[in-house]
């Protein structure tokens, strides 16, 4: 009979991912081998560079903080793990050294789980595997470490997404292997790898059978540290034997083989053993890309769609992808990039359908150059769920006598586009901030004039209009027209910047309605959403508004994404870097939370009742309030001072 203490450990673990996926009997076995580790405040659990131990940790009581060290030895707080959170899972999946310093922030009690025994279980519990892989590869917690440890990024920046998505292939079609002979020198092997832009080279015998593999990491370890001469044969540093896998292996096979062996690269051979010829190499990176396969297929399908109704179906499918990505806790930068690609594809498809419709109606081709702009969250590339449309149209200046006819054409075109988008599930904007509104469908010159008027006469409505217009992104057209408008806006701002920015800042600080407190939350006191928390107005908008104003006053108006804005601000003002970083992280938490809630309820996820949140979600949400408050204080201070001068 397992003893009471084991049962107690088991009871604690059973609610925590990934232990929650295990059967009770299995979990009892895991619990029976736990070491309870006591960490007095300030003591270190592990340090970077230390070889992995045969255990990973769950916080039973207290708090463990993970720090990364930069080149100068400065410590940066990466993660704070509270009760029930896992850390140090790296040794479970790979034979890497630790990347962070883990230190007890307060008196803490840890459960050290034996990873040997745990690894044996993983094969039988795919959800455990999935959870661990996702948390290693994508979650915010490990993303930084992972990116640092792998040569290529797993969360590509937005502009890198398209090629990656298109290049996605199933593992069967892994690239042609780069090979060398055991007696070739290390430097030759390194050159071959560099030329082919690959991270590994397979060492083969005369019959092309694999005898070993050399990866970037092996090179770094041995050569860069001068342990081995560059003129030595590759056989001196290769890992041998290699782990082989057949050509028809599924992604799951590959993942399990990688986990079992702790290797990041597998060699594909004709018969799946090292007694046949090499046919390919699969890296951990390939697996991650393959897992992200579906968005690419979806985007292709959007390109083939013939009706807006089918677009809606595809967009519903995108929501399933979104749910999967959120579930696996993939980095939000990757999720937003993928979803922005999908949203853009749908906008472009709607535009194509609308242009075809104009032709069919006998209106012919567009009479002038034009750009279609996405505004608001889609403009910032931060839209995950379908929200109201926010868009605008800008066309080149035409002679006065043609203006009305040209504008009529574009209004009709915009009517179709917004209609199709509405059918696809992006409902019409309440405030009518859409290209089908005559005020939002203008030539360059008229846009400039309208903008100047808004800036001079800063009523609340005009301020809102201007602020929305700093977050635009061209989705159709060549971008030359909005660039002209941007240039004009910045020229205008030169003259009125102080007053204008102060007004924007004041608008951003305005509290929309009276509030009350409910279980540590500021909730709406009355109206339809009484006792609910307005995620957008109370937490997200203050962060996006602040980022916009600060980046404008720093004259970096061309950055139009909240994360990128905070990143740029952190560089511009090193003294506030921590605050900006906290603000970006809080924003990430909020985006994620809103998407998760919205998906669950089938709405925009904007309003949340404290009672529907899990303990962790409530904690995350509450923690995000601190940066919101601090960033508002910073705005207040900065722009009041400017205002008074």
């Amino acid at each position, binding site marked *: 009979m397992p003893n009471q203490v084991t049962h107690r450990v088991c009871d604690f673990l059973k609610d925590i991912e990934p232990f929650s996926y295990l059967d009770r009997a299995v979990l009892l076995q895991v619990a029976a081998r736990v*070491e309870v580790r006591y960490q007095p405040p300030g003591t270190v659990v592990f340090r970077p560079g230390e070889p992995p131990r045969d255990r990973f940790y769950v916080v039973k009581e207290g708090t463990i903080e993970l720090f990364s060290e930069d080149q100068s030895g400065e410590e940066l707080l990466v993660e704070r793990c509270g009760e029930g959170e896992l850390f140090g899972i790296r040794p479970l999946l790979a034979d890497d050294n630790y990347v962070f310093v883990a230190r007890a922030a307060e008196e803490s009690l840890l459960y*050290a789980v034996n990873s040997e025994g745990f690894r044996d279980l993983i094969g039988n519990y795919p959800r455990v595997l999935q959870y661990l892989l996702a948390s290693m590869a994508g979650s915010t917690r490990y993303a930084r470490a992972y990116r640092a440890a792998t040569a290529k990024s797993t969360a590509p920046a937005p502009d890198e997404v398209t090629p990656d998505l298109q290049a996605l292939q199933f593992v069967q079609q892994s690239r042609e292997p780069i090979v060398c002979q055991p007696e070739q020198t290390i430097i030759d092997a390194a050159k071959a790898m560099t030329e082919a832009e690959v991270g590994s080279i397979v060492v083969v015998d005369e019959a092309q059978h694999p005898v070993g593999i050399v990866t970037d990491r092996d090179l770094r370890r041995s050569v860069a540290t001068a342990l081995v001469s560059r003129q030595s044969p590759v056989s001196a540093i290769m890992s041998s034997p290699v782990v082989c896998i057949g050509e028809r292996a599924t992604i799951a096979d590959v993942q399990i083989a990688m986990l079992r062996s702790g290797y990041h690269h597998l060699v594909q051979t004709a018969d799946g053993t090292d007694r046949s010829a090499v046919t390919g190499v699969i890296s951990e990176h390939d697996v991650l890309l393959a897992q992200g396969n579906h968005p690419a297929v979806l985007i292709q399908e959007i390109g083939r769609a013939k009706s807006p109704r089918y677009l809606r179906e595809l967009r519903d499918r995108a929501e399933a992808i979104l749910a999967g990505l959120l579930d696996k806790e993939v980095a939000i930068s990757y999720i937003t990039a993928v979803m922005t690609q999908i949203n853009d594809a749908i906008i472009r498809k709607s535009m194509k359908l609308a242009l075809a419709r104009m032709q069919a109606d006998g209106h012919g081709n567009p009479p002038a150059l034009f750009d279609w702009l996405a505004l608001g969250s889609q403009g910032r590339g931060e839209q995950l769920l379908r929200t109201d449309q926010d868009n605008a149209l800008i066309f080149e200046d035409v002679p006065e006598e043609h203006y009305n006819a040209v504008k009529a054409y574009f209004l009709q075109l915009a009517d179709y586009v917004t209609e199709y988008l509405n059918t696809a599930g992006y409902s019409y904007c309440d405030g009518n901030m859409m290209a089908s509104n005559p005020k939002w469908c203008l030539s360059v010159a008229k846009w400039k004039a309208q903008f100047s008027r808004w800036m001079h006469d800063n009523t609340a409505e005009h301020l809102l209009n201007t602020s929305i217009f700093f977050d635009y992104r061209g989705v159709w057209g060549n971008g030359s027209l909005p660039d002209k408008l941007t240039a004009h806006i910045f020229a205008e701002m030169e003259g009125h910047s102080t007053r204008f920015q102060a007004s924007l800042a004041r608008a951003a600080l305005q509290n929309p309605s009276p509030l009350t407190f409910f279980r540590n939350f500021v909730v709406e006191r009355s109206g339809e959403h009484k006792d609910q928390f307005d995620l957008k107005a109370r937490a997200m908008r203050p962060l996006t508004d602040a980022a916009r104003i600060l980046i404008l006053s720093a004259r970096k108006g061309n950055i139009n994404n909240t994360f990128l804005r905070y990143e740029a601000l952190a560089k511009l003002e090193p003294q506030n870097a921590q605050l900006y970083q906290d603000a970006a992280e809080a924003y990430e938490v909020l985006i994620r939370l809103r998407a998760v809630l919205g998906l669950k309820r089938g709405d925009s996820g904007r309003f949340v009742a404290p009672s529907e949140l899990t303990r962790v979600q409530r904690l995350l949400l509450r923690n995000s309030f601190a940066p919101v408050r601090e960033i508002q204080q910073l705005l207040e201070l900065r722009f009041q001072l400017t205002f008074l001068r």
Partner: protein
Amino acid sequence: MEGSDWLDRLRYRFGSHATDSETGSWPEWYRNYRVTLAGRTVSPDQLLRELPIVVLDAETTGLQVTRDRILSLGALRVYGNSIHLAEKFEGYLPTPPHHTPGDSVAIHGIIPNSRRYTYSDEPTLLAELLDYLGASIIVGHHIGFDLEMINRSLARHGAGPLQNRIIDTAQLAKRLRPAGYWTPEGEYSLDSLARRYRIPLSDRHTALGDCYITAVLWLKLLTRLAIKIGHDLHLRDL
């Protein structure tokens, strides 16, 4: 169980100066234990965290050492800052026939001869315990009573007493915060200390559950004592 002076005297009388006639009649498992102990001497200069520690607890039929009997023994190993659950010691004895289940059942919840447990007999349990203990330092809360129960049991089976170094967590707690006007004697019970040092009181009054609480208390007390003394603890500091 005040201090351990009387225990030391007891040990002096029975243990180290045992006569040949006594040692000759020892059971084999006890002789092996003594050989293991003789082979390991610990210097007072050794760091505590480098020494093998066993946290021990006994559940008994009552509190009268002359009359009552051991019902279960539990022990956990502590290395440095870690408690190793996999290396636990746990054993149950059937309730002796002449003992009517009394108040103690309400305390430890061991129903006489319940089928939930696998019982062994006293000499086997003692032999296993000594094998588990080896030369480790024994840590326990108000450990004097548990030791006396075990030593009497050992004597009943022709063996000598336990010879390990003993540390009482209640004494340790007193040293950290001496009794006085504000801290009455009762404040050093396992319950009060667990509350003071914020250790959850689950599975109280099971041998292993108490061991676990005591083990965590031990780790917490050591850290505080090290801070108070100002350096890493050596055996001589205790």
